[in-house]
């Protein structure tokens, strides 16, 4: 089982709760995904609106752990304040820390990310940093107190899959004992399977499921992809080679003209 900050999670698929056509479809998607962790956020609420309470009731029915995010935060201060508000609302020390540095790519601001991770760790949070595949940044985040890394596969919402396989492989190899989640950019179950085959502990996605024509079916597709990839990783895959090697034995072949 995957373990994050001492909590064992049966499913290696984490699923976002945004952009579904309806709450009912969100619920169906979660059921078929088997996801054990749901990402959530905090947003402004109007007086008398009570939308937050209704959404929270829906999430609790799913029976999953919640991982609140600081999505959309561009400064350290904003991310830290948002994390505190999320901790109170969701009653969890977990925070998916996003400090965005670039509006078009939603690339993390590495400097702000490390600073916010340090502040939040000192405040008692268990930080899941949304980061890139950069090894040096990964090391700085671990030094800041993070015990999980969440490198992107590709920019959020693009569905491009793993755009820097070499970088992700390097990051995985550099920190073999750190739980790592490929977060963002996945579009297809095959891409999730590939991340799992590379030895990542889990994947986190949202748009690929929520924006599919049939979100519930796609959720199950991702669940199967994650499971297939993990099984392959645990099964110790063969080494690829350049030249063909016959799989059927040559010994005993009839000599025919």
């Amino acid at each position, binding site marked *: 089982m995957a373990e994050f900050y001492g909590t064992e999670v049966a499913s290696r698929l984490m699923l976002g709760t945004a952009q579904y056509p309806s709450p009912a479809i969100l619920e169906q998607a979660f059921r078929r995904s088997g996801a054990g962790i749901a990402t959530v956020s*905090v*947003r402004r*609420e109007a007086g008398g609106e009570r939308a*937050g309470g209704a959404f929270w009731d829906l999430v609790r029915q799913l029976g999953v752990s919640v991982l609140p995010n600081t*999505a959309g935060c561009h400064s350290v201060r904003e991310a830290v304040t948002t994390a*505190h*508000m999320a901790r109170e*609302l969701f009653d969890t020390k977990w925070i998916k820390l996003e400090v965005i540095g670039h509006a078009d790519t939603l690339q993390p601001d590495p400097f702000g990310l490390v600073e916010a991770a340090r502040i939040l760790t000192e405040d008692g949070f268990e930080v899941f940093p949304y980061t890139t595949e950069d090894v040096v940044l990964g090391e700085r985040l671990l030094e800041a107190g993070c015990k999980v890394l969440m490198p992107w596969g590709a920019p959020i919402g693009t569905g491009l899959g793993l755009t820097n396989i070499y970088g992700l492989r390097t990051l995985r190899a550099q920190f073999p004992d750190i739980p790592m989640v490929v977060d963002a950019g996945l579009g297809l179950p095959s891409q999730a399977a590939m991340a799992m085959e590379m030895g990542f502990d889990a994947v986190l996605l949202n748009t690929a499921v929520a924006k599919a024509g049939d979100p519930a079916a796609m959720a199950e597709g991702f669940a199967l992809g994650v499971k297939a990839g993990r099984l392959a990783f645990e099964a110790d895959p063969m080494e690829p080679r350049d030249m063909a090697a016959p799989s059927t034995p040559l010994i005993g072949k009839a000599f025919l003209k």
Partner: protein
Amino acid sequence: MKINVNGEPQEVTASDLNAALAELGYRDAKVATAVNEEFVPAGGRASVVLQPGDRLEIVAPRQGG
């Protein structure tokens, strides 16, 4: 006094944050608050005295990725 609530100007008569939340329709709502970008825990709202021009953020659980 005039304060700013979630980016909009609002007139409130309450002087502390707890009373202001009730006045603005948030009584018993599942919300978290920040005043002038600083988080104010639920237990500390009654002791936060609002000043004219304060920026109040009131957030609640929402969908996220």
